[in-house]
Structure formats: C-alpha cells, structure tokens
C-alpha cells in the first residue's frame, strides 16, 4: 500500500445556519486520483477551500504527510508542497507563459526578495521543462492574457507543479473546456500523477471525466459524505443515484 499524502478528519464549516461541510473525513494516497463529486451546493467547493487554506474550518484537522495544515494561510500550505489549480483560471495576465512559471519557480527557490538579476534569465530551462510536460512550450513567449481557456488551464497545471508538490488540488480542472481538451488534460494529469507519485484530489461536474480518470470517488450531498469507492461501486450506490436522479420519495419532502 502506498503512502497516505492527505488526510482530513471531521472537517466542519458553518455559514450562519447552513452546515456547508459536516464532519467530512477523507484521504488520498500517493499516485492516486481521487474525485470529489456531488450536486450543486453539496459543499464541494467549501470542502476544497478548507483543505487549501482559503477558509478556516470550525472543527476537524487536515494533515499533509502527517504534518498539520489546519489554520495555515494558502501560501504556507503551498510551501509545504500543495499545488493548486482554480475553477476560474488565475494566472498573471501581464506576463508571458514562461514568466508565469518562472514566478512560481523563483518563489519556490526563495528568490522573490532579490532586486538585481533579471527575472527572465532565471530558471529558463526548468520552466521550459515544465511547459514541455504540459505541452505549452511552443506558446512560452505568448502573454497569458491572450491565451485560450484550455491553454490557461495547462499553464496553471505547470505552475502547480513548479514547487515539486506532493499533492495536487484541482477545482473543476476541465470546466469551460471543449470535450476533446478535457480528455487530453485529464490524461496528462493522470500520467503526471503516476510518474511523479503525486496525490491528486479534484472536483468535477463532468461524469465522463470522473468515471474515466478517477481511481476512487467520494460523493458529497448537503455537506456530508454519502458514498466512497471505485467507479463501479459509486455508480451502483442507491444513495448516489437518489441524489443525482431523485427517487421521488425525498424530493417532495422539503
């Protein structure tokens, strides 16, 4: 059995009267792709933001390779080895693709507070290697502000890999992409996860992506986990079917 990279126990978060995340526990192994799915409003994004430090949990704890992450700001969590991509891509639009990666590398190597050597001459080979991995090397000199959406997602992936992470957190990695691009990006992610022995947790709405690429799937509804298992067992789970398709018994209730 491989190493458990991410562990969360009893995560809870309330917004006023809404229990957005209620006693959620999960774990991801090295080399594993774990999909977090659920209908709109199930608490996926809140759960995600508790893991990456964007939100502070009311209760529960998160550990990365045994080290507690609870209460740390996002930048500290990144330093410990967590790479992120966003639901709506966030890159530095006033820089070229390569410069975006160089920024992440400069930060990783602690060179941000330096004032003399030109940034664009540093870590060129390293950034090009990362860009080659995600297939963006040909576009390295283009400004991020003009890229197509699918390409931005790949730049984000390369940035997420820049600090040699142990864990990848991807919030709806294929949202807004064309179907063919979705498959390509997830194939790419999967091969990187396998090759580098990363743990990868992602949320996703596209069921083809989920069932085609996840090793394991966890399902949330109304803030709580309702199912966990491989594609076949989740597909056949009656509770999951009820949430996604409705059984007629509960939908009239309230």
């Amino acid at each position, binding site marked *: 059995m491989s190493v458990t990279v991410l562990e969360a126990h009893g995560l809870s978060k309330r917004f006023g009267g809404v229990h957005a995340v209620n006693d959620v526990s999960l774990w991801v192994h090295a080399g594993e792709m774990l999909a977090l799915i659920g209908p709109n409003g199930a608490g996926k994004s809140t759960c995600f933001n508790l893991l990456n430090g964007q939100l502070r949990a009311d209760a529960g704890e998160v550990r990365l390779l045994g080290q507690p992450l609870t209460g740390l700001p996002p930048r500290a969590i*990144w330093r410990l080895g967590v790479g992120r991509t966003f639901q709506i891509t966030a890159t530095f639009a*006033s820089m*070229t693709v390569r410069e975006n990666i160089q*920024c*992440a590398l400069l930060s990783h190597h602690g060179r*941000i*507070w330096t*004032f003399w050597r030109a940034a664009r001459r540093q870590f060129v080979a390293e950034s090009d290697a990362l860009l080659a991995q995600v297939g963006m090397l040909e576009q390295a000199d283009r400004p991020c502000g003009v890229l197509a959406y699918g390409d931005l997602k790949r730049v984000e992936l390369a940035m997420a890999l820049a600090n040699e992470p142990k864990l990848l957190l991807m919030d709806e990695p294929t949202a807004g992409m064309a179907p063919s691009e979705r498959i390509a990006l997830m194939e790419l992610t999967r091969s990187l996860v396998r090759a580098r022995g990363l743990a990868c947790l992602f949320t996703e709405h596209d069921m083809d992506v989920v069932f085609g690429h996840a090793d394991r799937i966890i399902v949330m509804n109304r803030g709580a986990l309702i199912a966990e298992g491989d594609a076949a067992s989740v597909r056949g789970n009656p509770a999951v079917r009820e949430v996604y398709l409705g059984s007629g018994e509960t939908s009239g209730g309230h």
Partner: protein
Amino acid sequence: MDFILIQFLTGLANASALFLIASGLTVIFGVTRIVNFAHGSFYMLGAYLTWTITRALWDWSGREPALFIAGILLAALAVGAIGALIEIVLLRRIYRAPELFQLLATFGVVLMIQDIALAVWGPEDLPLPRPPWLRRFVEIAGSRFPQYDLILIFVGPAVLALLWFLFQRTRFGVLVRAATQDREMVAALGVDQRVLFTGVFFLGSTLAGLGGAIVLPSQSAFLQMDLAIIAEAFVVVVVGGLGSVPGAFLAALLIAQVQAFGIVLVPKATLVLVFLVMAIVLMIRPYGLLGRPQAHARAATGAVEPVIRPAPAILGWAGAAALLVAAAAPFFAGPYMVTVLVELAVFVLFAASLHFMMGPGGIVSFGHAAYFGLGAYGAALGLRYLAVPMEAGIVLAPLLAGAFGLVFGWFAVRLSGVYLAMLTLAFAQIVWAAAFQWVEFTGGDNGILGVWPSEWAREKGAYLWLALALCIGATLLLRRIIYAPFGYALRATRDSELRAEAIGLNAVRIRLGAFVIAALGAGLAGGVYAYAKGSVFPTYISIPKSIDALLMVLLGGVQTVSGPVVGALAFHTLFLTVLQAFTWWRFILGFAIVLLVLAFPQGIAGFVRQRWERARGLEAA
C-alpha cells in the same frame, strides 16, 4: 461647562455645511463610482454665485429674508445645473475608464473652474454682509452665540430628512439606491443610466452648491475654497463609508466636533487631528462607519495590463545620449538651463518612484508628495537641528521618507482602490499639516531657508552632476528592480492576488516593500531638490504636488517602464515653456488633462510602444 456647550454648538453648526458637501460627494460616488475632485469647486461656485445672486436681488428689492433664502436656493440650483452640464459634456465619456483617470479628469475640471472663478470674480475675498435679521446673537449659558449658527444647526438634519424622503419615497430615490448597490443590474433592468447619472450629478452638485451658499455669511467667497474643503469632504465621506448618506451625516458630526474642540485644545494640530481620526476609523473599520465592501463594478474596463518586454536597444542608446548631453550642459548652456536640468533629474526620480508602486504594483497613491516633502524636510531639519552636512543630509532624506513609508504603508497596503488612494491622501495631509502648523519646529509657511550644498557641490555644474548621478542612478535602479524577481512578484500580486498567494507569495508584505522603495526614491528626490533650491516649504507636500507626480506618470504612460521618465520630462518642460507664459495656465493645464484622459489614455510612451509592437507583429495583452 459653558465653554464645552458653546464649542459643541459651533461644531454642530459646522457639521451642517460639511454634511451638505459630503452627502453630495457620497451620492455621486455611490451611483457613478466617480470620486469627484471637482466637488470642492462646486462648493466654491455655490459661495460665489450666492454672493452675486443675493446682491442682485437686494439691489432689486431690499433685504427681505425671503430674498436671501431665494438667493441661496437659486445659487444651489445653478451649481446643480453646472454639475449636470459637466457630467453630460465630460464625465459621461469616462465612466468606463480606470478610476484614476476619472479622478484626474475631475482634477482638470478643478483647475479650469479655478481660473474661471478668478476671471469672473477676481482675486479678492468676497464677503457677504449679513442682513440685519441675521446679525443677532442669542444668549446661551451666559455667552453670545450667533443666531445664524443656530439656524445652521438645523439645516443639516433637515437636509438629511429630505434626502431620506427622496431615497425612500420616490422612484428616483429607489433607483439611486439600487444603482448604488449594483449599477449593472439596474442597467440590465432597462433603466436609462444616462438620465439617472445626470440626475444624480445634479443632486450632488446642488448639495455642494448649497453647502457653499450657507457658509458664505460666516466666511467669504475666496479662490482656495475648493481644495481646502475637498480634503475635508473626502475625509467625511471615507469615514462615513463611501456611498452612505447617513454615514456621511455621522462622520460630519464627528469631524466637525473634532475640529471645534481641537481648535481650542490643540490649536497647533487641528489639521493633523482630523486626518488622524480618519486613519483610526479606517484601521478599525476599513470601509468607514456605515460603509460596506464595494461590490466589484463588473468588467469595468476589461483591460489587461500589458506584458513588459526588455527595452529595445535603441531606447538605451537614446537614454545614454540624452544623459550625456545633460551632463555636458555646464560647458555650453547658461545657469538657468543647468538649474532646469537639476529639476528635471529630480522630477524624473519623483515620477519613477510613484510609477514603481502604481504601475507594477497597482497601488495608486494620492499622497506621494508626502515622501518627497519628507525627504526635503529630512535634509533641512537635519541641517537646522543636527547641523548635518549635505553628504549626510542626502542619506537622511530617503531614510526619513522610507521610515514614514513603512509606517503609512503598513496601513495603506491592506486597502485597495479608492480607500487606498484616500488613505494615502490623508497621510500626506497629516505630513503637510505638521509642516504647515508646527511653526516652531518646521518654520511653518515660511519654510526653512539656507539649505545649501557642501562647498564642492555649490557650483551649479557640480551640483548638476551630483543630481544626475543620484536621481538618474536611483531611477535606473528602480527600473532594474522592475525587471528583477521582486518586480515580477509585485506584478504578480497586482495581476492576481489569489494566484500570487497560491504560489507562496505574501502579497501584503510585497506591496509594503514596494511602498517603502517608492518612498525611499521620492525621499531622495526631495533631498536633492532641497539642496538645489536652498530651501524647503510646505507646498512640497501639498495636494497639487502629489497630482503633479500622478500627471507625470500618466502623461508618460503608467503601463510602460520608461513612461515616468518621458512623462516627467514632458510635463516639466511643458510647465516651464508653455504654461508659465500664459496668464490662464491653470485653465490650459486643466483642459490638457481632460483632453489627455479623453483621447490619450495610454500616455506618450504607451502610445509609442503600441505602435512599436504593432509594427513588429508582437502580441500585446
């Protein structure tokens, strides 16, 4: 006890006028998102027009109370009409421009109105004699209290009640409140924004005009009313919360009381006190007393900052050639030219330091002159009290400015947009007020004289070389930092704070670093300027000085690295050659600013770069 009561009543009376002006400003901002510098000019016009109209009415038919009130109302409505006209002619065209450009455009209007007022009413203060029925005093707690002030106390609450009725009970008011919350949504619901915006400008300007009208009987109409009141009005609006009328009322009460008691208790520090109150309120409640976080104006510009590429070699050669010609000037040019070149070197660094935080950092400061002035005063005070020679003074200057930059920046970089701009303005006003009011220490308005360079640099040519070495050297260093990892990190926090944090960058600390570096640069410029002029004055820290820096940066182009250099050279040359030759230079400068904003928003260097990139088929983001 009696003294407290009288001061309290005086404070209440002053609060009324302050509330009228601030409520107009806050209503205009709430709906149009424009921070209207010209609001102070509307207030001034209100006072002048009341002077003209009331006297005309008196000439026509005696000094009836009704005519006095009619005069005030007519003047206010006339100002409202002027405001609406300016909205239709100018502001309507720039609602989608970046905030900063809107502010500058309204500042252009300020300059134009200043010269218009000078042309129409002349330079003398114009007092309006109070009619006999307003000259009485009332006996309160054994003191004589002016009856007019007693009336004023009730004007503020009355206007607040009227505004409340307007906003809660009329269709126009409902639309104004809706637009304050979400103007895109209001537009999507089919409301004609143009009519709404013009209406709001009419309302806001009328309130400003009314404010000017009601203070006229206690003071006079004079030409500096506009900038004097606008700083106070900004404070009230920001303390109350941008867009909140009840907030403006509370803040007006607070600020007026602080002033009323401050003038008795700490007469030397009334100005500092007001801005200190604002700074404290913003630290505790970053959006003001009753303000709420700004809903982002959706897709306001959609503009993406362009990629910064290495400068083409030709630019480097041109710069080196220009520097060489400047350095050789003592051999062929007269002393006036050499003096001008020193000034140019100083302003290049001043503009470049502001650009450093404004361009790559996106931190727009409206009080950059504070650090310029602190540098100048650092050198002068060091000479006066510690007898430090020039060599040490030149080091002291940036250090003093940098230290204040660290303190002020610590608060400022946590805010953004208009609140950030206003807080920097407030800090600058604190520094200005200290230099102006603390006469024993700083010499007040008379400044500090005799700040001369050391023996070896006293000759004009030698000082030019020193100025070039320091100012141009520092400018090149700033440029170097923009291309270095720190500059990239700074741009990263501007482009996407979310992503910056997600790659381990501490955005607040990086912005603070940029703030301090900019303050150091401006401080050095101020120090060099002080020794060049031989004296320092509070005007070095004034609002117009801060605006000069903004103009230089914007004229050159905020999105280019060479922009501030080009802008400083162009602005100062323009000032010395064209503007000084005209009597009405303020009007011309104001008009030029408005034209710049309307027609040339990317600045000179931005324009050239756009052409350059297009000609070479480079992709611009």
